[in-house]
């Protein structure tokens, strides 16, 4: 990592242990990570590698058992509207329309109604759902629902966006389309994004740096830089070279005939 100025997100020697019926399970061990403002970081690994745990810790939904996490120099204690999380199952409120869902976060910022409406419409437009703003979530496809969640997150103008396998429930084609969109949004809005995934291609397509994580116990194994320009070509030799490198990190290079399962 490049030294010098203070890092935006600092994870210092963090471990998380869950205790259930007096049995301790180590979800994450000795994690150290530093992230600059505006970086797109992917946490990549199979299930049980602690990637979601690490995300929840940085987002403030949980507290580390050991170590500390700093966001912008402040120790993380609880979730904040400045750092918004997007979940795999979207977390949309089914009783609210698209517009109502996007307005949810804005309501606690103390804006007046007209302003809330205007900002919400702007972001619904950004994700291309203007025609659907009066629809309820159940009337939308999975990809559209996730766009609503993205609009809702962006609308409150957060400093960081956490994404927990946000495209995990989508089919392959929709998933690639959403990857294009989030990559475009990232370039436009210059947010710091922390993106959890188990999809190697997805991480190579999206990330500036890929944090490779391995299970039993969950650990950060290494970090792979992705010095490719945007918008990335999934079939370009440079793309495939980095993909190979990631496979190698998981020691799946020689055995890459074996399907990578989760």
């Amino acid at each position, binding site marked *: 990592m490049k030294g010098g100025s203070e890092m935006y997100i600092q994870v210092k020697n963090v471990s998380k242990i869950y205790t259930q019926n007096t049995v301790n399970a180590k979800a994450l061990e000795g994690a150290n990570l530093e992230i600059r403002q505006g970086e797109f970081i992917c946490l990549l690994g199979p299930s049980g590698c602690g990637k979601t745990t690490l995300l929840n810790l940085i987002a403030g939904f949980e507290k580390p058992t050991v170590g500390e996490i700093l966001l912008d120099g402040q120790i993380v204690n609880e979730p904040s509207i400045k750092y918004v999380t997007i979940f795999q*199952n979207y977390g949309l409120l089914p*009783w609210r329309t698209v517009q109502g869902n996007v307005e949810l976060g804005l309501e606690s910022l103390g804006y007046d109604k007209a302003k809330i409406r205007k900002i919400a419409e702007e972001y619904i437009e950004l994700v291309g759902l203007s025609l659907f703003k009066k629809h309820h*979530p159940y009337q*939308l496809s999975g990809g559209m629902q996730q766009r609503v969640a993205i609009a809702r997150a962006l609308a409150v103008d957060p400093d960081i966006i956490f994404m927990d396998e946000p495209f995990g429930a989508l089919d392959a084609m929709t998933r690639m389309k959403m990857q294009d969109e989030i990559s475009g949004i990232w370039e436009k809005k210059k947010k710091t994004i922390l993106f959890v995934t188990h999809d190697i291609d997805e991480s190579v397509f999206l990330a500036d740096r890929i944090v490779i994580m391995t299970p039993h116990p969950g650990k950060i194994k290494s970090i792979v830089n992705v010095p490719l320009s945007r918008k990335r070509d999934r079939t370009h030799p440079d793309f495939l070279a980095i993909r190979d490198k990631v496979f190698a990190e998981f020691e799946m290079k020689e055995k890459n005939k074996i399907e990578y399962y989760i």
Partner: protein
Amino acid sequence: MSRLKKLINTIIGLLLLIALWQGIVLTGKYDSSLLPSPLKVLEAMGELIENGTLLTHIRVSLYRFSAGYLCAVAAGIVFGLILGWFNKLWGIIDPIIQVLRPISPIAWFPFIVLWFGIGDTPAIVIIFIAAFFPVLLSTVSAVSKVDQIYLKVAKNFGIKQPHILTKIVFPAAFPYIATGLHLALGSAWVFLVAGEMVGAQSGLGYLIIDARNNIRPDLVLAGIIFIGISGLLLDRLIRLLEHWIGKNWGIVPNERGL
């Protein structure tokens, strides 16, 4: 098609019941003062409608019912949300509720009369008691069933109390609460009649007691039938409401928008 079939089934069922009833009357084993004939009851129903007695009593009953039921719904939901949210408090209150709940509201009648006198209030209180517990219990359990992700989202977006309860928990729990409202409606209607039988000078329950005192079994049966029909209509009304809620709460996965 299926609607027509349903209607036909209903008519067949009713005709069978009436035929059975008429058959028993025709055996002549029962005096008409013990079992009036269907025709006589029909006449009695006409009489009640014509002279306006029915309307007066139904109006009174519905007023008491709405007052008691709506108060119970409001109180049940508010307390249910609070107790469901603060589950430590619920741990203390729950045993008390479990003791109070199986007591028939009618059992409280001596106290109700002492505390609330006579008139509309005792009946309203009885309906309140009958409806309150189902609403309270279904609300408490609905709160505990609220998907954690909504609470996570609320926390993330900086939503604070009481808005977590009003904006998130209540709407998220409402489809389950609605089931409780439906249950409560049924049991409250049952106790309305019982309440009016013991302490009122008007209403559908009183109508029956009054008819008995005048030795008019045909009027008694007519009253019973009207109570059944009104209960059925109320049930249908709340079903419509439930359907409307389902649609607006996004839990009816009917046609997709696109």
